[in-house]
């Protein structure tokens, strides 16, 4: 299960709207325990695939090193990634699968249709090696903000 606040959930969906018609991407920092990837922060990353940004994303490894370091300083690990599919379903593609290497991490995809975020899905990359990895549908638990009552 992927657990995140409504604020983070909305932020990663908004990121996809802002970069439309290009794919957005980012890193989910948090903690993993007992089958739950709990997100504490979503860090926006640049999409280096400027040659094909409408249907590709790639995060520069140097940026990942920096984000991992910043997370470590806050006691957080990389627990997942997110990206958008402009005018395409929120379903992992063959490209997403072929280029997924972070076993145990959540891969969150938001479909953005004509600039508006629609479905958001999460897929857990399971397995023990590159050879037996697979994506599994993963439930998303969004913790709603508690509004102050007068």
């Amino acid at each position, binding site marked *: 299960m992927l657990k995140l606040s409504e604020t983070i959930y909305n932020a990663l969906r908004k990121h996809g709207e802002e970069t439309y018609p290009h794919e957005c991407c980012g890193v989910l920092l948090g903690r993993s325990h007992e089958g739950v990837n709990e997100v504490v922060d979503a860090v926006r990353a640049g999409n280096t695939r400027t040659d094909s940004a409408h249907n590709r994303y790639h995060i520069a490894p140097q940026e990942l090193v920096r984000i*991992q370091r910043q997370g470590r300083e806050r006691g957080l690990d990389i627990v997942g990634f997110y990206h958008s599919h402009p005018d395409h379903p929120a379903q992992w*593609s063959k490209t997403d699968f072929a*280029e997924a290497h972070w076993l145990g991490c959540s891969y969150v995809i938001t479909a953005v249709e004509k600039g508006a975020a629609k479905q958001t899905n999460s897929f857990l990359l399971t397995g023990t090696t590159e050879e037996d990895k697979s994506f599994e549908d993963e439930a998303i638990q969004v913790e709603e903000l508690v509004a102050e009552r007068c």
Partner: protein
Amino acid sequence: MKIFIPTPLRVYVNKQDAVQVDARTVGEALNALTEQHPDLKKHLYSDEGKLRAFVNVYLNDEDVRYLPEKEATTVKEEDSLSIIPSIAGGCGPQERTRL
């Protein structure tokens, strides 16, 4: 020096986020790491013994692949290595892996 381990590979290093090794070069550091933790080797290297294409190794903030001496680059105790699998994808059709 310290080698930082990404979350998917920590299971092979007793769940540590970093491993301390004694080494004079990047190559020696990686060898020391896989000698200490042999189960890690197949996740980092292909059957031909080459670093897998999606595994990036950074010496501080520099990609080891682009250093003039690559894995023969000398290291200091205060340096750190980061192992960082690549992250990419997208809704378009599959293409050759980019490094």
